[in-house]
């Protein structure tokens, strides 16, 4: 309530002063234009400014302090950052995020697109198949993590079953093997997320003019080439929306790791968001957590802000 009132108040004072000097037929104060739209956008503006910008500034500010359990403005310069980048767990987290990110991005797009392309062949039972591919998206990461932890558990899951069938040397325990655990986590992530990507791609494919297909057929272009060189470039907006959804999911990955491995074995499957959470709350070292947050925000900003501005900031 508090910030809201302040914001309105400021606008109101700004409104009244210049309006007095102008006669009615003159250009009204620009703040009056679309006033309803502005009023209606107050929640958005507040969210953007108070929560996202305000929260970010606050976080960055306190990352330069040695705040422990409670935030205190006790500045220590870049100490938290030196420590952060000297911490093996942080470095592993970053590495894992990169691996996980590349896997998610590439496989979600490829699998999602391939499934969509298959479904777009005017097949029978399309609804059934689509529902099957999409249903995991309805489940939370916590649930997804639990199920896959169970399936990949060497004592109960796939490995156990295959060994029971007679292949006793079979080994498939990605969640218990430090060097491949992050791939094991990705299996669950892809299971959960590709359905949505498929839906987006399918929607995109359905938006392609039938004439394009006819033209490609008349020209004798093979189907895969039509997809690759004609259809995919035409689906640019879908790919952009998809990228936003996938990428924002990648940076935020947390629950899935917690539910499947809690970062283990050891610290082999740690991710940055978990580092932030653990250090802020578990280690009761807010400063360190904020420094890690700031690094995450920074990397997000470097990639996203220019792109978002180009994509949404300016219109034809």
């Amino acid at each position, binding site marked *: 309530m508090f910030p809201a009132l302040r914001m309105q108040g400021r606008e109101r004072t700004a409104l009244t002063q210049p309006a007095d000097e102008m006669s009615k037929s003159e250009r009204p104060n620009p703040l009056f234009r679309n006033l309803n739209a502005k009023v209606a956008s107050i929640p958005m503006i507040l969210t953007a400014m108070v929560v996202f910008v305000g929260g970010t500034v606050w976080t960055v500010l306190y990352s330069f302090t040695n705040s*422990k*359990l*409670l935030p205190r403005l006790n500045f220590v310069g870049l100490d938290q950052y030196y*420590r952060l980048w000297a*911490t*093996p*767990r942080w470095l592993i987290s970053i590495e894992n995020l990169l691996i996980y990110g590349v896997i998610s991005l590439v496989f979600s797009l490829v699998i999602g697109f391939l499934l969509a392309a298959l479904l777009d062949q005017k097949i029978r039972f399309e609804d059934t198949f689509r529902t099957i591919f999409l249903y995991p998206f309805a489940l939370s990461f916590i649930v997804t993590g639990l199920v896959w932890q169970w399936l990949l*558990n*060497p*004592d109960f899951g796939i490995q156990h079953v295959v060994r029971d069938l007679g292949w006793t040397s079979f080994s498939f*325990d990605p969640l*218990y093997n*430090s060097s491949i655990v992050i791939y094991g986590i990705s299996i669950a992530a892809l299971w959960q997320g590709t359905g949505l990507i498929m839906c987006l791609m399918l929607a995109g494919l359905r938006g392609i003019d039938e004439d394009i297909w006819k033209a490609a057929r008349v020209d004798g272009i093979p189907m895969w080439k039509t997809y690759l060189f004609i259809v995919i470039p035409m689906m640019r907006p879908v790919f952009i929306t998809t990228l936003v959804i996938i990428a924002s999911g990648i940076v935020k990955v947390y629950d899935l790791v917690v539910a499947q*491995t*809690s*970062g*283990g*074995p*050891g*610290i*082999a499957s740690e991710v940055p968001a978990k580092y932030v*959470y*653990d*250090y*802020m*709350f*578990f*280690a*009761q*070292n807010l400063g*360190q957590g904020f420094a890690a947050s700031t690094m995450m925000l920074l990397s997000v900003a470097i990639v996203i802000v220019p792109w978002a501005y180009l994509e949404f900031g300016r219109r034809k």
Partner: protein
Amino acid sequence: MRYKLLTAALAATVALQFAGPAAATDLEVTHWWTSGGEAAAVAELAKAFDATGNHWVDGAIAGSGGTARPIMISRITGGDPMGATQFNHGRQAEELVQAGLMRDLTDVATKGKWTEVVRPKSLLDSCTIDGKIYCVPVNIHSWQWLWLSNEAFEKAGVPMPKDWNEFVAAAPALEKAGIIPLAVGGQAWQSSGAFDVLLAAVGGTDTFLKVYKDKDAKFAAGPEVAKVFKAADDARKMAKNTNVQDWNQATNLVITGKAGGQIMGDWAQGEFQVAGKTAGKDYTCLPGLGLNEVIATGGDAFYFPVLKDADKSKAQDVLAETLLDPKTQVAFNLKKGSLPVRGDVDLNAANDCMKKGLAILAKGAVIPWTDQLLSQDSQKQKEDLFAEFFAKPELTVEEAQKRFADLIASAD
């Protein structure tokens, strides 16, 4: 056992309904005691509190303290405090007290003569800040136990070890019999705790204090501690086939004879009890790993956030008194497997292992625990290090010790 718990809970609810709502004040108590033995112990506290005419609203948060504490702290700092909350006593709640968010219990303490009844004295010291008492210790938890499965050793055909070294020697025979020698759950605090126990047991009390109390980094890099790291190296080799996360699942491996032993605090005893196992017959406990019989005075304590509601504040006082009540202490600690914080209670019902603990306590062989010596921040870094150490054989003993020494150098 579970049925018993259920009936207890039901009884409590029924009792409340008849107690007359006017006098009853609901008090929400948050904690992270959710395993079988723990839940049974909490039920005792709730029963005792409900018997005073108030109502214990249970706010259990499953997971570990690591999951629960952030939630508790967010709620206290967010202005929606619970009536009382569990913390490990020590330094976890220090800043909350300093920020004036916690209630000063000095009056209740004076009335109940806590300074006289609570032992060892160090327990109350960790509740005291600037001469005022802010928490109620409810139990003494000691980490320094090695729990061994009699069944497993029988199966492997080796005699029950009497200390850590014999245990290590018996490991190959256990492995041969298809038994995991040492169960260490995947959660970071378990490997870290196991190392601390080794430090106190293999290294000795002085080594332990020099590292954690004096924070002597040079010493931590030296040969005394290197010995401990050697032992930790043994431990991780023995534990490499453990595929469980939670500590009680690891304990369950010992209970079922799938694992030879586990280094775990005395709360593991509650699990043996719930499973109907008898100390000495089904399982064996070695305090201080059989090498250095000490007990750390870590444990749980309840803190009481400052509340505006006067009725609730009054109920807080009642709860604080109830928690230290001799009868509650006995009932609670028997279930929990921990030691009571009062020296003046009757513990005839205690089993073998608890009696061993009580004897050590009576001898005064106590050391402070890492919760009291190190900040949460240093604890967490330590956890990260040992989680990695136990899971990653490529991390050499030397490298790990060097990182440990660096950590001690910057610890607070």
